[in-house]
């Protein structure tokens, strides 16, 4: 019994010759970097559940796109953005706990999405693609969009890195230093919502959160220096994407879940290694 879809190096090289495979690998690496970069702040600002909610809200945009016979990708971006900003507005303007607001928005969006999808006549293949994604289907436009988003995120975060760290750490001290805390939060949410929308096509609603949370959480286990943590998060995000794509090609697994599986294994391995290291450190100290 052969578990491998690709058994020789030449077959693997041949697989990598296909333009769709090259686009998928480049797309996966870019999304890994984007997820690692934004995810660093997502995990520190306790926004993990936020990206999950925005991901589910994207269903509304996709369904509307199908119903109105528009390009679902272009409907995905504004709907994710709108939901992201609405969620943040509710969090900032009410006394309710953020997880309650996220649950309310997520449930409401999911209900609207499911009802709208029931109005679609005939084939609903697009909706399955939203749930599970297909990285092999990403095209040139998606890649350009991802590059632009990665560049915008990098410029925004690195040019204001000290301010971003301080407002994440303690908003009151940041405000006293003259940092426009609310404006920065909204800018970040805009980038995050767009990143979720772009990544949904590749990995689907159900797994999009992994790209934002797992690499950053793994990096957090390793480093307590912020710059190293940020760099590690981006490196882990991109490296696990490449390895995940190779695993996907070797075993003929679905690409998105393969990347997430690699991220998960790396996280578990890092966790075990850090526990062992701490135990040894204590023993020898």
């Amino acid at each position, binding site marked *: 019994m052969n578990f491998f879809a690709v058994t020789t190096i030449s077959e693997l090289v041949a697989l990598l010759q296909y333009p769709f495979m090259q686009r998928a690998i480049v797309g996966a690496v870019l999304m890994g970097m984007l997820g690692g970069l934004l995810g660093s702040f997502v995990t*520190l600002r*306790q926004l993990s559940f936020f990206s999950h909610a925005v991901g589910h809200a994207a269903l509304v945009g996709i369904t509307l796109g199908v119903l109105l016979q528009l390009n679902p990708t272009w409907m995905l971006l504004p709907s994710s953005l709108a939901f992201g900003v609405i969620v943040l507005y509710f969090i900032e303007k009410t006394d309710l706990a953020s997880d309650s607001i996220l649950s309310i928005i997520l449930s409401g969006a999911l209900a609207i999405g499911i009802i709208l999808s029931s109005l679609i006549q005939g084939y609903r293949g697009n909706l399955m693609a939203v749930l599970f994604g297909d990285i092999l289907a990403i095209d040139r436009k998606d890649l350009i969009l991802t590059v632009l988003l990665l560049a915008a995120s990098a410029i925004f975060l*690195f*040019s*204001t*890195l*000290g301010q971003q*760290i*301080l407002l*994440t*750490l*303690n908003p*009151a*001290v940041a*405000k*006293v*230093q*003259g940092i426009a805390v609310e404006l920065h939060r909204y800018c970040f949410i805009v980038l995050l919502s767009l990143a979720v929308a772009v990544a949904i096509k590749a990995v689907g609603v159900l797994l999009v959160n992994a790209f934002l949370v797992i690499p950053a959480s793994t*990096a*957090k286990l390793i*480093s*307590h*220096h*912020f*710059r*190293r*943590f940020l760099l590690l998060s981006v490196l882990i995000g991109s490296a696990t994407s490449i390895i995940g794509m190779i695993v996907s090609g070797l075993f003929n697994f679905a690409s998105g879940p393969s990347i997430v599986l690699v991220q998960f294994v790396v996280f578990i391995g890092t966790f075990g290694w850090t526990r062992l290291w701490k135990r040894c450190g204590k023993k020898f100290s």
Partner: protein
Amino acid sequence: MTDKITILKVEGLTVYQGNYQAIRDVSFELLSGTNTAIVGPNGAGKSTLVQAILDLIPRSSGQIEIFGRPISKLGNLRHQLGYIPQHFIFDRSFPISVAELVGLGWNKNYKEIQRQKKQGKFSWVFATIARISPQNQEKTAAVAAALRRTDAYHLRNQAIGTLSGGQLKRVLLAYCLVMPRKLLILDEAFAGVDVQGTADFYTLLNELKQEEGWTVLQVSHDINMVSNYCDRVICLNQTIICTGAPAIALSAANLLATYGPGFSRYQHHH
């Protein structure tokens, strides 16, 4: 001796929290190179007053000027303002070292911006490039000096989540010391610090005041330290009960009026 100038001016400040009037018609001024303490019982509105001064909470009425300007129009002057909150609440697993945290207080292009603005050559392009460029030696030296001054240099590579309450206060003070400030606002900054540590802090504040002309406004519960080190005391209980030099403001009658019956003062010596 240089003339003292008004660093902070509070006029007719009233703050409501919901329907509760937390602060009523508070007015006072701080002169440069002075150390002023706000004292009062729990719930007297001390932290609320500090937060209203810093524009962290909305005020119902009143005017506040820092360095002669409304706080919303301070611009780059904000870097001359240092603040340590009562509770520095943060995620204990936040991946940041002590040196990195102290470095956040450093504004490396501050001096250059001031110089360029004077010459009318200020460029946002320069400011952005300076901000994203790697750490420079000047910053590293300033961080090390600030940490040494607060006796926290040995903690520089430690994660901030591993610090004790007292160590964290030292590091936060170093964050304020990393560049020159004109006004330092401390909201019970020494709570949780041991007796010797508190005495060291007060001595350091005294040095900053006398040698570098810093102005300090602090909320404190330590009446004895306030008596020994502060120039002026504001006794607060929703409104100002009394104000003046410690010998006058902290008289038995004034403390009774501020804290109410049942107040008694215990002396400690350090």
